[in-house]
């Protein structure tokens, strides 16, 4: 329904693997003609048509279940993606190809002496602002690999090691068994089984190499459940294993807070506490109501922060969040998480049971097929938060979290002695 999947050409030559296209997305923004199905709104008396659920393939090839409204929203989203694609192509025509890859360096800077310094600064600023605005409106799927590698710093990270790094890393890990590889093997068939490529032998072999490779690169992280979903979506977007690997590396090592996935998830604990405080600041009524109920935000937000919404939001919505995440940093996760609460403020304030809170937040998130609706809430209605404020808040919470984790270990070992 939403375009067809074209499998990448299979090449068995190991040396070509990291470069070859793994999977082709239904090209929402490519100038191809695609058939669009539009449902008309049922008249009164036929309202139950809205309740009819259909299974269909979404923009990135995931089988999802939705109603007529969801399908129509997805069609609108695809149309907007095409329009946004045209904006990017127009800018390429006026600013030159790949202008977005180095927004801090003017294409003509440095060659005309003193005057160019001023013009350089101005163009750098203009480019940075233009790019930020453009990215918030969405990066066209075909440009995502290039743009993400650049703005996240992954390309720079890769440039510091020999070109053969990934291939050598994978070769070195072949045939080795560790606790990480055992858990990875367990999770491969359980990672988006509703996606045909990810559920194929080829897809799982690719995902395995990326995850195992990373577990050897950073033995403190090894493998943490949740990374399977992140890496899988990265593979679908980046198209090559090596690019997906470097995006995973830059995420864990530079974009996200430290120790998010290490063996006690301390970074994740810190983020949960920071989020709780931000909720109290930005949505005080919701926070007070949930507090009175004994609801802990970590019940829903742990998955959001560890899977970076990939398991929660529809695929294109997740990728729109990631567009901004790679460009603006981890504070974006707070914006989005707060938005999901804020969107349902009235309902949340009426609810009296913890179970209903989880239910409403999860259901809301699963049906956010319109990325612009979410991002408008996240950035316009939540208001600005500086990275500086969040960094300070994190520092404060780090001490508390470390003390708590220490206490926990002490309590458990005393129970061990009793037992």
């Amino acid at each position, binding site marked *: 329904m939403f375009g067809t999947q074209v499998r990448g050409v299979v090449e068995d030559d190991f040396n070509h693997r990291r470069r070859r296209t793994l999977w082709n997305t239904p090209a929402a923004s490519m100038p191809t003609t695609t058939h669009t199905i539009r449902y008309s709104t049922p008249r009164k008396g036929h309202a139950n048509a809205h309740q009819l659920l259909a299974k269909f393939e979404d923009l990135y090839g995931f089988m999802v279940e939705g109603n007529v409204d969801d399908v129509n929203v997805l069609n609108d989203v695809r149309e907007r993606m095409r329009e946004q694609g045209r904006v990017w192509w127009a800018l390429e025509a006026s600013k030159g190809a790949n202008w977005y890859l180095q927004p801090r360096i003017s294409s003509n800077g440095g060659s005309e002496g003193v005057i160019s310094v001023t013009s350089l600064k101005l163009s750098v600023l203009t480019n940075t602002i233009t790019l930020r605005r453009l990215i918030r409106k969405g990066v066209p799927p075909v440009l995502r690999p290039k743009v993400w590698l650049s703005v996240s710093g992954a390309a720079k990270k890769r440039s510091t090691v020999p070109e053969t790094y990934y291939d050598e890393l994978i070769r070195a890990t072949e045939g080795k068994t560790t606790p990480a590889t055992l*858990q990875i093997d*367990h*999770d491969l*068939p*359980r*990672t*988006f*089984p*509703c996606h045909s490529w990810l*559920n194929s032998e080829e897809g799982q072999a690719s995902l395995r190499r990326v995850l195992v490779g990373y577990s050897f690169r950073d033995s403190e992280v090894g493998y*943490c*459940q*949740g990374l*399977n*979903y992140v890496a899988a979506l990265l593979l679908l977007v980046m198209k090559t294993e090596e690019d997906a690997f470097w995006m995973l590396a830059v995420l864990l090592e530079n974009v996200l807070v430290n120790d998010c996935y*290490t*063996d*006690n*998830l301390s970074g*994740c*604990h810190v983020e*949960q506490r920071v989020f709780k405080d931000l909720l109290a600041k930005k949505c005080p009524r919701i926070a007070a109501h949930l507090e009175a109920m*004994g609801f*802990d935000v*970590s*019940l*829903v*937000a*742990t*998955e*959001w922060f*560890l*899977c970076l919404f990939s*398991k929660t939001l529809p695929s294109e919505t997740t990728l729109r969040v990631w567009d901004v995440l790679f460009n603006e940093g981890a504070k974006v996760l707070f914006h989005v998480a707060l938005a999901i609460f804020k969107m349902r403020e009235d309902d949340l304030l*009426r*609810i*009296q*049971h*913890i*179970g209903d809170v*989880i239910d409403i937040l999860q259901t809301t998130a699963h049906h956010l097929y319109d990325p612009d609706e979410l991002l408008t809430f996240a950035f316009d209605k939540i208001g600005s938060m500086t990275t500086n404020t969040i960094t300070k808040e994190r520092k404060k919470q780090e001490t508390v979290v470390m003390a708590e*984790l220490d206490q*926990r270990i002490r*309590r*458990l070992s005393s*129970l*061990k002695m009793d*037992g």
Partner: protein
Amino acid sequence: MAHRVDNEYDYLFKIVLIGDSGVGKSNILSRFTRNEFCLESKSTIGVEFATRTLQIEGKTIKAQIWDTAGQERYRAITSAYYRGAVGALLVYDITKKQTFENIQRWLRELRDHADSNIVIMMVGNKSDLNHLRSVPEEDGQALAEKEGLSFLETSALEALNVEKAFQTILKDIHQIISKKALAAQEAAGSGPPTQGTTINVTDSAVNTKRGCCSS
């Protein structure tokens, strides 16, 4: 305290599923609440839960079953997960010895986080894979007896004993609640409770549905 207050249910019991990654927690949940089994289920990361309402000893019980990630590093973030739970299904995989050996560690987690009165049932899942069995049923039984837990082997795939496991634990919980309610009534009838008597029928461990105007 235990009287019926509306048509929906008499009690809401929260039961948590715990155990190592891959023992089948999510499928036990879906088998009990939706009578479904999914060979291609996603690994659980945050918290998932589902409910089913059933009759236990003449009362309408709404069982709210919670499920979460099993990987070791997730254990430290689950204190909110245990809060208010009156029952725990402690699951291992009969084909994976390690998951049985970790039962003690899970018990420690329960003692650390959960209410001390929580009712625990040990479940050896995947009994359909008898040919791959690495934990004899007697070993499961022996450990359960030693720890004072009830025990059953289940197969979520073949829908074997899953219903029975939940029926058993829900019945156990209901009996404890009924006894407490009775004790509370007696105590109320014969002056204040004597020192050392704990009555916590209405604490967070059991949600009794209140009047229809509560929301």
